[in-house]
C-alpha cells in the first residue's frame, strides 16, 4: 500500500494537469528504508513527449546526489499518461529500475489541463512483474494526532 499525504497527492495531480498533453514526471523522496513519501520533486520531462518521459540526465544526477547526501531514496516515482489509462505500459515495465519504489501513474486523458477527477493508481514493478496496490490518502495533521 502507498500512503500519501493530501498535499503531495494534490501536487502530483496539479503537475500532471499543468504539463498535459506532455507527460509529467517526478519523484517523492523520503528517508531511506522508511517507505515514507515526504518530499515532492517535480522533474522536467527531457523527452517533452505525450508518449514518453525521461528525466534529464544532469537533473537525475543532481537529484540522486541530493537524496544521497540526505540519506533519502525515491519512495515514489510518478508519471502521467495523457491519452491512455493509468496502467504501466510495456516501456514502463521494461525500464522500471527502482525495485523499492511505488510507481504512481496518473491519467489526464479525461479532463486534460482542466479541473476534474483523474485516475491515480500505484504499482510495484519488480523484475517485469506489475502488482497494483492501494493508495491511502492521509491528512497531515490527523496522522500526527493519531500517534498521540
Amino acid at each position, binding site marked *: 500500500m502507498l500512503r500519501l499525504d493530501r498535499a503531495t497527492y494534490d501536487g502530483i495531480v496539479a503537475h500532471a494537469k499543468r504539463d498535459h498533453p506532455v507527460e509529467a514526471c517526478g519523484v517523492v523522496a523520503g528517508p531511506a528504508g522508511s517507505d515514507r513519501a515526504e518530499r515532492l520533486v517535480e522533474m522536467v520531462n527531457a523527452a517533452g513527449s505525450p508518449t*514518453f518521459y525521461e528525466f534529464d540526465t544532469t537533473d537525475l544526477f543532481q537529484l540522486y546526489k541530493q537524496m544521497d547526501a540526505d540519506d533519502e531514496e525515491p519512495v515514489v516515482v510518478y508519471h502521467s499518461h495523457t491519452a491512455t489509462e493509468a496502467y504501466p505500459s510495456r516501456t514502463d515495465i521494461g525500464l522500471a529500475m527502482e525495485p523499492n519504489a511505488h510507481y504512481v501513474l496518473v491519467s489526464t486523458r479525461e479532463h486534460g489541463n482542466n479541473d476534474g477527477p483523474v485516475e491515480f493508481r500505484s504499482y510495484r514493478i519488480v523484475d517485469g512483474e506489475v502488482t497494483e496496490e492501494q493508495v491511502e490518502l492521509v491528512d497531515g495533521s490527523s496522522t500526527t494526532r493519531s500517534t498521540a
Partner: protein
Amino acid sequence: MAIEVRIPTILRTYTDGEKSVTGEGATLSALIDDLESSHSGIKDRLLDGGDLRRFVNVYVNDEDVRFLGGLETELKDGDQVVVLPAVAGG
C-alpha cells in the same frame, strides 16, 4: 590506482549489496572490465554490443560521460564514477 564506483540499488545484487565498490582502469571501458572480474555479470547490465546501454547513465566527477569521451573517457586515481539507471518510461 583506485576509482570509487557508486552502484545503484538495482545492480547491488552484483556487489553483495554494497553501495560503492572500487576498481581500476585508465578508461571507463577498462574500469568496466575490471569491475566484471570481481562482480561477474555487471558488464552486461552496463553495456550492449560494446556501447553503453541507452538507459544507463554513467558520470565521472559529476559529468555525464556522454558529454565526455563515452567509454573512452580517461580516468585517474581518485576519480569518482556514479552509475544511475535512467528514470524513463512511456
